[in-house]
Every structure is written in structure tokens, then in C-alpha cells.
């Protein structure tokens, strides 16, 4: 393999930054959630790249665990979004002002 590992980590950093901007900019709760998924994937990519760099599989196993946790998180998060939508008829985060300080 002749590609430097740091290139993969740089791509991962860029994807993480794009995900961060997505969370900050978008209004639709579903798209915000998708951006969070993008961030999780970016970190997984960094973990796998570092696992390759250090020549052991701990990073890959950690990425595997984070996938399991992400799957559970997606299921619960989407159920919450559906519940909120049922109550408010909206998935726009600007409309959810009950907890406004």
C-alpha cells in the first residue's frame, strides 16, 4: 500500500467537518440526524486507518462496536422524530420551542 495513512485521516477530518456544518445549518431534524451519521462514519474511517497504521485490529473492532451503537442510536432517534412529528406535525427543529429558555 503506497497511499500514506494520513490521507485517509484527512478525508475523515473533512467529512467530520461537513457533518458538523450540516448539524449547525440544517433545519430538518432528519437531515440533522443524517449529518450526525456522517460524523460517526468519518470517525470510523479514522479508526480503521489508524488500525492499519499501527498494525493491529483494535481499531477495527472499535469501529465495529461504534457501528452497533450507531444502529441502536438511529433506531431510537428516528422513533423520537416520528413521535415528535405526530404531536407537532412538523420535523423542523425551529418549531420545537417548548423547552425555550
Amino acid at each position, binding site marked *: 500500500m503506497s497511499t*500514506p495513512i494520513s490521507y485517509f485521516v484527512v*478525508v475523515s477530518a*473533512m467529512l467530520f467537518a461537513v457533518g458538523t456544518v450540516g448539524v449547525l*445549518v440544517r433545519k*430538518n431534524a432528519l437531515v440533522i440526524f443524517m449529518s450526525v451519521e456522517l460524523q460517526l462514519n468519518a470517525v470510523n474511517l479514522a479508526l480503521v486507518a489508524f488500525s492499519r497504521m499501527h498494525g493491529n485490529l483494535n481499531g477495527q473492532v472499535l469501529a465495529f462496536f461504534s457501528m452497533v451503537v450507531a444502529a441502536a442510536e438511529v433506531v431510537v432517534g428516528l422513533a423520537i422524530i416520528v413521535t415528535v412529528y405526530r404531536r407537532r406535525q412538523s420535523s423542523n427543529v425551529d418549531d420545537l420551542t417548548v423547552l425555550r429558555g
Partner: protein
Amino acid sequence: MEVDQIVFWVFAPISVGSAIAMLLQRNAVHAALFLVVNFFTIAVFYLVLGASFLFAVQIIVYAGAIMVLFLFVIMLLGVDREESLLERLKGQRVVAIALGVGIAVELIVAIRAGIGFATKAPPDFDEVVNRGGNAAAIARVLFREYFFPFEVTSVLLIVAAIAVVVLASRRRQVITRADAARANEREAA
């Protein structure tokens, strides 16, 4: 130029480009489809990095299950709404993009300081670490060193499944036999 370099330089722009395209789509379905493209490119990176098991898991779990779930919920909540471009906080978008560029630059500087841009992986990963195939090698690590966390994740999945059933179920009015009899009496009277 070796094969893995060509693969990287083909897929890295697609990966970052599809992520940015996801941000720019006002329609949630289009955003989800761009995210699927992004997940596939990340799966290709896993393959190049010698993680063939995670390559399969990424496609099955992320590009398959999770994105189908997302699309299902988007369809359930209505696909025809487009996001309003109205800003509640003035200048939020500009500040957010500036902060995003800032975090990207900061992370890249940190990578340069931490591992440098030229660090190459040891060449014998597939022969030494992935001996007997990547899936078998992962199984050796997972079921020896990480056996307890693995069992904990199974509990986590069950708890999540139960939580979703509780969250998503509508409270129905329970009609008992006594209620029905009373209603019948009222009708008869």
C-alpha cells in the same frame, strides 16, 4: 502509481463531494441518496485499508439497513416539504460554515503535527495481522479480548428494540367487555 493510490484519488473527491452535496440538497430524499453514495465510498476505503469485514458490514448495515430506515421515515413524514431558507438566528449559516472550515483546518493541522502527512502503513498487514482472512482475525480479537463488551452490545440492541416499541406505539383506548356491555345497554335504553 499503484492501484490503491488510484482508488484513493478516485474515491476521495466523490466522498467529500457527496457529503457536501448532501448539505446543499433542500429535499430530504436527495440528501439521503447522497449519503448512501458517501457510505459506499467509505466502504471502498475500508477495503483499501484491509478491513474487508467492515467493508461488508458498512454496506449491509449502513447503506442497507440504516438508510432504508431513514428513507422509510422520510416517506412516512412526507417527502414534498422543502426546508425553508429562513434563518431564525441572524448570520447563523455564515458563522456555521466559518466554524466548519475552522474545524477542518484545525484537524488537518493536528494530523500534520501528530502523524505527519507522509506516514505509510507497514506493508505486511495482510500476511501478519489479517492471517487467515480479515473476518477470522477480527473474530479472534473480538471473542478473546473484547468478549464482555460484545455481550453488552447485544443487551444494548435489545434495550433499543424495546425502547422503540414503547416510543412508537400509540396509546389505544382499551375497550373491556364491561365497557362494551355498558354501551350496548345505553343504546338499548
